[in-house]
């Protein structure tokens, strides 16, 4: 099996789906000839023609809206928002439209579209190239929110999103695009090729939405994480010597409540890790779920390890 970076795995997912299904097309700012600023759509225009993979005007609202129209027609558009920090102009179309069209039309119309966007800090992007807006989507009924942490998951989950009949928000942790950064700033980041989850099959496969992955078993503490923070949590577990179970949620909505309950019922302790600012972050929802489902198993308060309620992100 070839070893891929997360970027290559995402590119392979798009390649696979463009090849399999003529209803799939992809577009976004600089996504065509140039192949995207992070190269996720590289060579796709060359291979499938400008009709299947093209550049869009700098209008995220229009990118989302036209994708909705295409999905309503019966296609399966995959759009790229250049940075998650720039999704807000599309927010109305995603929240008021994509999320609601099935419901408000009593399933007369549906919107099988996928919104891809790099998110998170760590690339010296300052306060507008580093945001983690996942909670702004998890609150929205009608949307599914998915975040991979490895090349293997990235491809399998992206294909699952493209084939899903509902609109999906697919957030890509750009800090681990090229290697599993684990928060140890003192050591160089090892490349993906050294990581088992960089073994990515060439062809078609899916990872079901809504299923978490126990990436480390442990008895004393459950750590819930997603994206880059999965690697940080694993490193922290290792460094601290605590017998922690680390769960990579993979899908935030609908979250794999069974996996969470099973683990916390066993460990009695839970720590939640995310990059986003704390207040009303997705960690709040996870805290609420854990305490609702596992209250009588909890031996200590659930802890949130999150970004501060500031706007920082070093330039």
């Amino acid at each position: 099996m070839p070893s891929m970076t997360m970027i290559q795995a995402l590119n392979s997912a798009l390649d696979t789906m463009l090849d399999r299904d003529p209803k799939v097309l992809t577009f976004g700012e600089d996504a065509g000839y140039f192949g995207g600023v992070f190269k996720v759509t590289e060579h796709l225009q060359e291979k499938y023609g400008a009709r299947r993979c093209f550049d869009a005007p700098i209008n995220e609202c229009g990118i989302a809206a036209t994708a909705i129209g295409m999905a309503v027609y019966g296609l399966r558009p995959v759009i790229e928002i250049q940075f998650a920090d720039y999704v807000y102009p599309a927010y109305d179309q995603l929240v008021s439209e994509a999320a609601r069209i099935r419901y408000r039309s009593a399933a007369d119309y549906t919107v099988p579209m996928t919104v891809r966007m790099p998110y998170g800090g760590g690339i010296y992007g300052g306060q507008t190239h580093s945001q983690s807006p996942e909670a702004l989507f998890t609150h929205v009924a009608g949307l599914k929110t998915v975040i991979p942490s490895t090349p293997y998951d990235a491809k399998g989950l992206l294909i699952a999103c493209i084939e899903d009949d509902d609109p999906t928000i697919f957030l890509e942790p750009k800090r681990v695009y090229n290697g599993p950064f684990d928060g140890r700033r003192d050591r160089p980041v090892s490349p993906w090729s050294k990581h088992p989850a960089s073994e990515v099959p060439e062809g078609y496969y899916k990872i079901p939405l809504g299923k978490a992955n126990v990436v480390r078993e442990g008895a004393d503490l459950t750590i819930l994480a997603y994206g880059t923070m999965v690697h940080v949590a694993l490193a922290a577990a290792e460094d601290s010597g605590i017998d922690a179970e680390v769960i990579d949620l993979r899908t935030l909505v609908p979250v794999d409540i069974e996996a969470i309950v099973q683990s916390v019922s066993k460990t009695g302790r839970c720590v939640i890790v995310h990059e986003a600012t704390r207040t009303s972050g997705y960690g709040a929802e996870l805290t609420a779920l854990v305490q609702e489902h596992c209250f009588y198993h909890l031996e200590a308060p659930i802890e949130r390890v999150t970004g501060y309620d500031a706007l920082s992100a070093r330039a």
Partner: protein
Amino acid sequence: MSPRKSNALELHIPAPRTRPGDKPDFSGWSFPEPGDTPRPDVDASAVEMREFAYGLIRVLDLKGAALGPWHPRLDAETLRRGLKYMALTRAFDDRMHRAQRQGKTSFYMQSFGEEAVAVAQTMALDRGDMCFPSYRQQGILIARDYPLVDMMHQIYSNAEDPMKGRQLPIMYSSKKDGFFTVSGNLATQVPQAVGWAMASAYSGDTRIAAAWLGEGSTAEGDFHAAMTFASVYRAPVIINVVNNQYAISSFQGIAGGENTTFAARGVGYGIASLRVDGNDFLAVYAATQWAAERARSNLGPTLIEHFTYRGGPHSTSDDPSRYRPADEAKAWPLGDPIARLKDHLISIGEWSEEEHKKLQEDCAEHVRTTGREAEKVGVLGVEGAHSRESMFQDVYKDMDWRLRAQHEEVES
């Protein structure tokens, strides 16, 4: 604040010429004569066509004669069908407006005075073309023979409501009739229509899309998105701005109508743009036909501004005499679209006052009978019209564990 300087700047706030208590005044508008506007070839370049955005395409004069190169020369049967659909739309609106007053529904919105736009356009389009309406194009459904009773079920939010009580009254949806689910959020449907049109072109299909929005709604960013994408990808779409001169209480100056026309917006994007007398069934039909042919020939989008007048209140929630002269509607110089088409049909010997009276009575009767049928199923406020389960359905294709749990919770 510092004392005023001689060269001080001043903030301009647009105000209409007239307010309640004033005499209606439309003297500010000047209209080209019917028949005077030339008809460009459908492959004319948008650049050459710029002046059409500042004129007004008119076919019918106010005595009922049809004039000039835009005259679509429809057969009498088609014209009578158009008249019937418009009359039926008006009768339907009238009954539903009163139903709201009687407490049978919470809300209603008429298209009074603007019936020609939706009806003539639908008739000029192909049956398979996809419509992305705002909330004032009930005429599309009616002209596509959608059952009135289903519209009423939706308005009454009763057990037969195809939207299962989830939408505000009048927010219909019918995929089989090419009628997109109406959104409460203004203008969102316009770039969606562009995307649908792009998808049709992508697929080598022959169907085109059409979208409608009010002049007030052109201010939304979604309109700009639609125009930009339509221009860039030459989408086979017709974007219709229904300029009925009001957005709730705001006159069109608040939407930018003081300084230019709404058709001019299209010029800014290099999109072919037509400005039409929206109360002239024949002009609306002809302009739509032109734009549809252009789109179908891979020549790209057209913007049409339909200049009309909102004859009624914005909705059942407002009283227009609070913000405009009470008798202004009657003073609108371009008349009533139904009366004008009727006069034309009579003038060509294909209709009579008696037939017209009969048509109106038939429409009223049809609406009345249908109303009774719908009311039997239920009106506003019937408890249990929709299963509790339906509240949790269609959020996603399949209910996830949260929705299943919450559904169980209500049932228990």
